[in-house]
């Protein structure tokens, strides 16, 4: 592209190039659309990895693996890690990390039970309260990161320990059982069975998957369409520059960690609803699974870029692997080995793609 300096130099002064401005803007939109398509293609490729896995397992186990009920099974098993990964995506895009989601989720489940079972708050109110409680934990993380300037790894590692301990303390080290009805949030089958009785919708489709889908849509909108998403990307790209651009980075970091905490709270509700009780233990390990889902999905741990669709694909890759390896009876001791290798390959392929992308 060459440009005529004599003409363009005068641009700021005269009205002449108004038309060309409009054309430029149009061209810009067109190019960005081109990029968007390329981006979608990249995601399709990540999706391709998932598809390949699916096909491999489907060939190995044509009767069982691709059956409707097994696919529902896979989706169901992806719900908790998936919801955690949605929040983790937002945090990781800032260049941070959240290790507290595993025990934080357990703590939120315990709080949900405390509200609903111990304090007799109705489910319709207790569940939002539990989710908000997750937001509170997240906000504390955000405060420690943004205001106290602690490294996110440390701030959330400490929260991981604290939340895990407090879950034991609050629950008095015993599971708390929910009233009937609570379990419906996860294992009920609203769609098909109750919602639109006449319509031929799939049966036995668990609510948990619908909640997950709604959560994913909310996360997508948050990231792509709102100020939160923009500032998320900007902070991850260059925090100091974002601050000097007039963005209240501290506030937004707290908001982003808090929103991630809301997803942790939701995951806490979903896991306790699945079980019908709030277990005060466990949760460790979920944080690494969530982060793995995010990174397999192409979000960079150094911040500044990421996508929710990618995270969904990452979560599904993990779920498909766990399910498929069991369905085709791979000995259990080999499954982690294979999972590790697939993670390596998935991220390596992504790297290659990214490098090729930038080279052409």
């Amino acid at each position, binding site marked *: 592209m060459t440009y005529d300096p004599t003409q363009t130099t005068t641009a700021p002064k005269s009205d002449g190039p108004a038309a060309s401005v409009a054309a430029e803007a149009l061209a810009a939109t067109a190019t960005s659309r081109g990029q968007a398509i390329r981006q979608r293609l990249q995601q399709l490729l990540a999706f391709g990895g998932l598809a390949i896995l699916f096909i491999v397992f489907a060939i190995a186990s044509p009767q069982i693996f691709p059956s409707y009920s*097994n696919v529902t099974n896979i989706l*169901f098993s992806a719900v908790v890690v998936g919801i955690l990964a949605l929040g983790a995506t937002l945090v990781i895009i800032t260049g941070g990390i959240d290790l507290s989601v595993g025990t934080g989720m357990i703590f939120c489940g315990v709080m949900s039970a405390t509200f609903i079972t111990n304090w007799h708050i109705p489910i319709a109110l207790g569940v939002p309260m539990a989710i908000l409680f997750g937001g509170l934990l997240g906000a504390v993380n955000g405060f420690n990161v943004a205001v106290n300037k602690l490294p996110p790894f440390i701030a959330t590692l400490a929260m991981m320990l604290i939340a895990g301990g407090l879950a034991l303390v609050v629950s008095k080290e015993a599971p708390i059982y929910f009233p009937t009805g609570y379990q419906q949030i996860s294992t009920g089958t609203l769609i098909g069975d109750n919602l639109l009785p006449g319509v031929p919708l799939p049966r036995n489709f668990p609510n948990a998957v619908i909640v997950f889908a709604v959560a994913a849509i909310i996360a997508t909108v948050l990231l792509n369409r709102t100020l939160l998403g923009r500032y998320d990307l900007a902070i991850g790209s260059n925090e100091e520059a974002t601050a000097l651009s007039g963005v209240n980075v501290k506030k937004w970091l707290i908001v982003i960690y808090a929103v991630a905490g809301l997803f942790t709270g939701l995951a806490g509700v979903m896991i306790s609803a699945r079980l019908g009780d709030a277990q005060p233990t466990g949760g460790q390990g979920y944080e690494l699974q969530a982060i793995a889902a995010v990174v397999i999905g192409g979000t960079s741990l150094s911040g500044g870029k990421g996508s929710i669709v990618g995270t969904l694909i990452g979560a599904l890759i993990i779920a498909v692997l766990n399910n498929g390896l069991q369905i085709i009876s791979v000995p259990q001791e080999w499954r982690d080995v294979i999972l590790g290798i697939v993670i390596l390959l998935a991220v390596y392929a992504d790297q290659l793609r990214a490098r090729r992308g930038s080279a052409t």
Partner: protein
Amino acid sequence: STGNTGSPASSGAASGGSAGGQKYIAIVSKGFQHQFWQAVKKGAEDEAAKVGARVTFEGPASETEVESQITMLTNAIAKKPDAIAFAALDSKAAASQLAQIQSQKIPLIAFDSGVDSDIPVTTASTDNKAAAAEGAKHMCALIGNAGKVAMVVHDQTSRSGIDRRDGFIAGIKANCPNVTLLDPQYGGGDQAKSADITKSIILANPDLKGIFGSNEGSAIGIVKGVQELSKTGLAIVGFDSGKDQKDAITSGLMAGAITQNPVGMGAATVDAAMKAIAGTSQPKTIDTGFYWYDKTNITDPKIAAVLYD
């Protein structure tokens, strides 16, 4: 300050833990967070309150953390308790700590499972293999001695996991050799993970007749998985108790379960420790027992007493 003398005996046992004549028993368990261990803890604490002793109870977060259990035991020795109760994750690993306990003349009680050593005054334990075999016997009866049976086991390397798995396998072989046993699957005792595993097993084996869960988390996970698939006609045999398992048995979802007597184990451990402090002689082993319970006997006072929520 005290310290670097190299001979800890100088401060004396009295100043260490057992102030004012109250005996102090340090209990180092295999776990802490799970309901089973909480029940043991409760039994120990109640018994201690009864006899006027003080107990501390600790255990690692998971049954694979052998090193941190050894560290806990070491720290417990440092507190110079009047007696130590220990449930070893790795019966060999604590050899030097056991020697130290012996040389400091602290009575040692083993519980839950034994250690390869004659240092313990007594061992209060359940025979996990026999307990699981008992479960297998009931499984055989429930499925009419034929068909496919799966196992969801909480751990492939811990003693209790290995014993219950092997005991169950042995029980099936002994009682109904025609039954096909699927490869055991390990769910870490995590309910959600065990539920996912169960669902995959059921989907992969539509002709499945029964499933065995080797501890509370595994058993409840099986129940959840079966519920989520709305599968009927499966014989589920569990292990341990807890509210969910009791509910499942009452409602008929679960055929029955083996329970140990964790509260009793805790109490027996403290009781044995007090006897050892006093120098009373006692048998080398105390069998804390196990019980099969199902819909028919769950309200039986003798059974109800060994169950916990």
